[in-house]
């Protein structure tokens, strides 16, 4: 999920038409990526096993299995199943879940609000903590404050989220009884899962921001700014942070993409009704249509986030605008 590379700065022609063309090219690429992801999901999930074996109890007879397989259309040749799948995809019909007997689009759509809420909550929390922490550490490079902050975030990065989650539950739900241990619906339900999920992202963002900022703070324009007599806060925030933000924004985007689909452990611990948990269950049931739809959702989420990150460069970096 996090293997996507940092995107190069965008080079665009005339500001409006260039941007539009760029967006259109990216959208066309996105369709290609989604098609490839759908095809891979279709093939891989079929390599993983037989849903009929999961749906029927072990004492079912071979004849009963054959009947159900035929009813589900799984006795058709692979190429015919693939054709049906693509035809459905073109009509935005991803089929019915084999387990839930509901359209998979509906099953996924039911989970989207919870998934977005958790990912957004965790991201906001990560930014609120990681950005000041990264700036603080960069401006005190090599000193006790830097070491303290970096040790703390490294600890967060190396701690498994399910363990953090259970500790938080034991403290705030079981012992202090101030926050619910699990469930979904109110702001109080969001707090512990969002904190748990943000621990890793805080570390990633803070560490990257620190190192980018340290690079930038050593450059000529910062020396010039200092020589102009600007205060340290203005130097760091107005001249340093903006230049250090490009790689950080990329990583924030990728982190958000990861948070959308990678919150499986957190969702399990807090019984959060998100897409990650749904996908794990769908895989264990070999629920082909649901797994395919979930993969498409994750692929779409990444593609959209990447596109937004890409477009944000032109806003953040004057050089990109100048090239435009």
């Amino acid at each position, binding site marked *: 999920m996090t293997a996507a590379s940092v995107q190069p700065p965008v080079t665009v022609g005339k500001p409006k038409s260039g941007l539009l063309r760029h967006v259109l090219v990216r959208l066309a690429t996105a369709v290609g990526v989604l098609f490839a992801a759908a095809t891979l999901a279709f093939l891989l999930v079929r390599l993983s096993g037989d849903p009929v074996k999961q749906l029927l109890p072990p004492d079912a007879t071979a004849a009963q299995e054959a009947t159900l397989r035929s009813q589900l259309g799984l006795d058709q040749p692979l190429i015919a199943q693939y054709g049906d799948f693509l035809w459905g995809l073109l009509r935005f019909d991803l089929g019915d879940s084999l387990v839930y007997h509901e359209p998979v689009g509906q099953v996924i759509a039911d*989970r989207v609000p919870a998934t977005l809420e958790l990912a957004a909550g965790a991201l906001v929390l990560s930014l609120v903590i990681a950005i000041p922490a990264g700036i603080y550490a960069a401006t005190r490079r090599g000193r006790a404050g830097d070491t303290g902050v970096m040790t703390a975030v490294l600890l967060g990065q190396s701690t498994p989220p399910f363990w953090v989650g259970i500790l938080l539950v034991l403290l705030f*739900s079981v012992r202090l009884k101030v926050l619910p241990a699990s*469930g979904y619906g109110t702001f109080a339900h969001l707090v512990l899962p969002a904190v748990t999920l943000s621990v890793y992202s805080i570390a990633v963002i803070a560490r990257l921001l620190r190192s980018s900022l340290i690079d930038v703070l050593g450059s000529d324009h910062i020396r010039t700014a200092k020589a102009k007599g600007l205060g340290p806060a203005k130097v760091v925030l107005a001249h340093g942070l903006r230049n250090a933000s490009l790689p950080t924004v990329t990583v924030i985007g990728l982190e958000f993409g990861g948070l959308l689909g990678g919150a499986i452990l957190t969702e399990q611990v807090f019984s959060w009704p998100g897409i990650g948990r749904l996908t794990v269950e769908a895989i264990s049931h070999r629920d082909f249509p649901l797994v395919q739809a979930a993969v498409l959702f994750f692929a779409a989420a990444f593609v959209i986030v990447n596109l937004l990150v890409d477009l944000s460069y032109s806003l953040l970096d004057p050089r990109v605008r100048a090239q435009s």
Partner: protein
Amino acid sequence: MTPPSMSRRRALRLGGLALPVIAAPTALTGCGTAAGAGGDGTLRVAQPTDPTTLDPHKQGDMASMNVLINIFDTLTTRDVSGRLAARLATSWESRSRTVWRFRLRSGVRFHNGEEFDADAVKFSIERVLDPKTRSPIVELRYVTSVRVVDRYTVDVHTTLHDPILPAKLSLFGGVIVPPKYLADVGDAAFAKRPVGTGPFVFQSFRRDRELRLRANRRHFHGSPGADRLVFRALPNPASALAALQSDEVDLVTGLTPDAARQLSGYAGVELESHRGVRTAYLNLDTTSGPLRDRRVRQALNHAIDVPLLIKAVLDGKASEVPAMLPRGVVGFDASVEPFRRSVRTARRLLAEAGHAHGLTTTLTASNDDAQVAEAISGLLDRAGIRARVDLLDPGTFSARLTSDNRHALGPIYLAASTAWTLDGASMVQSNVRHDRRQSRWASKEADRLIDAEELSMDPEDRQRAFTALQRLIKREAPFVPLYQQDIILARTTRVRWTPVVNGSLAMESAEVRA
């Protein structure tokens, strides 16, 4: 000597045990309650997963059945002592080899006011059998049709004599649905707003959040003990226990002994174990390799110290099963005793079979049973049997279990069956007779005994066949019977409830203190 896996198990558990220590049990008593407390006649039950669907004929798993048994009634039922009892059917009899007659309760209405009668029974059973329903329910495989005799009598016709048909109608295939409502709203809407005759009426369901039911005051057994019943899916046992401790749920079911142990000593939380019928055993491939020799199979039975396994790995929450049939099911014979556990006898038998220096083999198990499999491997090692544990994800394991290749799970695999019909036939239907899918044992005598218990109309004949079969299993050792697992519950003190031995969560008898 302690098996090697024991110390590893302890180490694995440390992480789990550390947490209650931090939470300081004594600090829990008398605390205020978190949001969502019951306290008003609401019973909140946690189980690991939600129902897959609320259409009772399109599901075949216990998590779904646990919810649906509260909304719907079945033709027969199991009482708390495990006896087959009347529900929507008041009595039943075998009219001929292929006909079972059921007399039905009159004056029963579905939650929408629709009347329950013989037409509803015919419609329901035939709906399970209809290929269009795509039902995963397989127990009614011998049923061909249902004939309405009069308004409150039906005849169920079968291809063969099915002596345990009434028991099979106590869950899954025995659920009765309202024909008119289904015709009016269709299958999809029915699954969204199910209507039954059961002790609770459906209110709402949001998957992975909660499912709410309210008491059916007009149920033929009277009003249930709880005014409202809420099911929540809490997949992680630690989270479920935390929810119990923070008063977000009243009853946690589906607990493993390890998870339950973490709760012992907490005030306000009670742990209960009740005898269950989920039965674990090793299936041995008697058709190839060293396991063709009966002495080797007997050696395995002597080597695996089942009482020690139960004590060390399952925290004592299971009972030894002597010969495949668990206590409490029809056919169990207490006179058949388990193997005497003796490493020395095991070594002697191995030596007699030409394996004086032991032998090497593979024990396949599902990831879910990893601890038990590793402990068994440790126990076998003491007798010189080096069994490498091969763990598979549960999906792959069950796919191989039911594959046409009977050797797909290797020479020895750890399996478990829940004989929810409470009849021995369910425990041995797939794995004994030589032509059944999971059988790796060719014994004419065993085949004859299976035919006798499956087809006989006389209960005494069936019992004789079961007794002889258990003795034969003990003698020939085609399996290593292990244990039947307890049903473990954790509950707050405001709830009183005794589970049914078949493991379902029928909550009408639960009492809730407001």
